[in-house]
């Protein structure tokens, strides 16, 4: 399941720097009024950061098997089911 070819130190440092830049970015953008898009942008940046950690630091990119990616994706998929189907109740209540 692990990345036998090995990501280089340079790659790790670049990803790390990218993550820090994205952190600064999301913090600064929060002070800009984007209306309803503020949470969208914030969560998009968070997801990009999470993907960078998963793909490069957790070695899912270049993993010897597709199974690793399937396992990770299924975790988030079933969480999405919990969130979406619960929302199907809350967003359609006329009294809520």
């Amino acid at each position, binding site marked *: 399941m692990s990345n036998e070819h090995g990501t280089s130190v340079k790659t790790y440092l670049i990803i790390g720097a990218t993550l820090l830049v994205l952190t600064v970015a999301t913090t600064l953008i929060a002070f800009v009024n984007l209306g309803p898009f503020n949470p969208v942008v914030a969560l998009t940046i968070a997801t990009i950061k999470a993907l960078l950690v998963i793909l490069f630091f957790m070695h899912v990119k270049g993993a010897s098997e597709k*199974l690793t990616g399937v396992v990770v994706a*299924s*975790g988030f998929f*079933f969480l999405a*089911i*919990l969130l979406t*189907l*619960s929302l*199907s*109740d*809350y967003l*359609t*209540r*006329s009294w*809520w």
Partner: protein
Amino acid sequence: MASIGIPANQAPKLNYLNNGHSLKSWLLTTDHKRIALLYLISVTVFFFLGGFFAMLIRLELLTPQGDLMQADTYNKVFTMHGMIMVFFFLIPVVPAVLGNFLVPLMIGAKDLAFPRINLLSWYLYITGGMIFLHCMLTGGVDTGWTFYTPFSTDYTNTKIVEAGLAIFLAGFSSIFTGLNFIVTIHRMRAPGLTWDRLPLFIWANYATSLVMILGTPVIAITIVLVAVERLFHLGIFDPRLGGDPLLFQHLFWFYSHPAVYIMILPSMGVISELIACFARKRVFGYKFVALSSVAIAVFGFLVWAHHMFVAGISLYAAMIFSFLSFSVGVPSAVKVFNWTATLYKGSISYATPMLYAFGFIGLFTIGGLTGLMLATIGIDVHVTDTYFVVAHFHYVMVGGVLMGYLGGLHFWWPKMTGRMYPEAWAKLSALLVFVGFNLTFFPQFILGYVGMPRRYWQYPPEFQALNVLSTAGASILAVGYLLPMIYFVWSLRYGAIADANPWAAAGLEWKTTSPPPTFNFDETPVVTWEAYNYDEIPHKERRAPVAG
């Protein structure tokens, strides 16, 4: 394909049972077969404890008045019955007893992937069980096994946090078992044992393990949130702060509905094995049955709010969940049709395991169909929180899960212990279980439909006749469960010695001795045949079980 020709009277060689006799060699074992037996003993204890509370319920309901106990006590009694049966019996029983024993054997492995985690699973279960017993003995819980808020977080003064901790630990036991099975099945299959050659019992346990991994953590966090709210008044479910009690129900049922698939899927796996063996045929539509297990596991996560139709969810959500609940019946029906098709033109014999399999198919079908009735919003509004629901879930849990477990226990008893159970007594018990079960629970469908609510300790006098029938049935059922306790124990000393394959069954577990050696196989098998290759086993090799 012939069974290993070990004569029945040969002195037993070193096997997993006699490889070490000290208490330490059992309590610190990492052998999956010994751990399965540890679980067997513990779940049986909890089963009879849960049964004791069931007996109290049925005794109280003999008469319309609440005369045996106070209402508050009755609340505790049905709560204890439910919590013990759900969390400490039904969820672990088939995976932890039969699954633990058989999964490595069926795939030709020496043990599970993580034997020490397997032992940890059992200790988590035991610790949770002990805490629960302590909770029970010092006052118990009265919220119903569903511990809905705000009663559980605010108004009850019973031991919610302690019970929650016990269930939390049992949940982690479940998670680790599931984790172990998934890794084992992915990584440790014998050479040649491809996914499409796996026994359906393995597919069933694999699907079950997916549910354990994905669902159990959600009830874990729900218990934590309830405990935190109760102890520190962080009012996430408190309506006075703007919290929503239905949020609890969403989180609770997100696990607890898939939990019922944790219960039934492994049992369905057992039935596939039994039907194939006792009809001497490949299971019809192997791929469909295998994939239907995975489909049930996945679809089972989409239906939870059918437990909440009258709780206050929106009508649109109710319609969505109703529709999704209909769809989850499809893969279950696929299994029932395929088992039936397997029987067609099979050579059917009626050993005890097969009797339980037949019972399962009939009773699970009734349970499943009434489940579809409950998924219909219009009917559910009428029968929710009545004995109709109670009857439905007992048909699937007892008529389904428990019958499958008993069938499997009888089938693999010779493999596990090297002894045969007495067939005549076993057949009698199966009959008593079937008759007793139907007499107990069928009247409850009627009671529920005409309006008797569940969890009530008194009822209008016109319901008494059906309640008396139900209690009478329960006493027959109890005898049906006690007899195997007696004859299984008897068989350990006096039962006929079983050889490696008394049923001439297909499957790798039958290719090693009964009982197996500690590391299962003297040589790792190499598999070159399809599952259930009964057409390659000559009929004359189908022997009746050794009479005992």
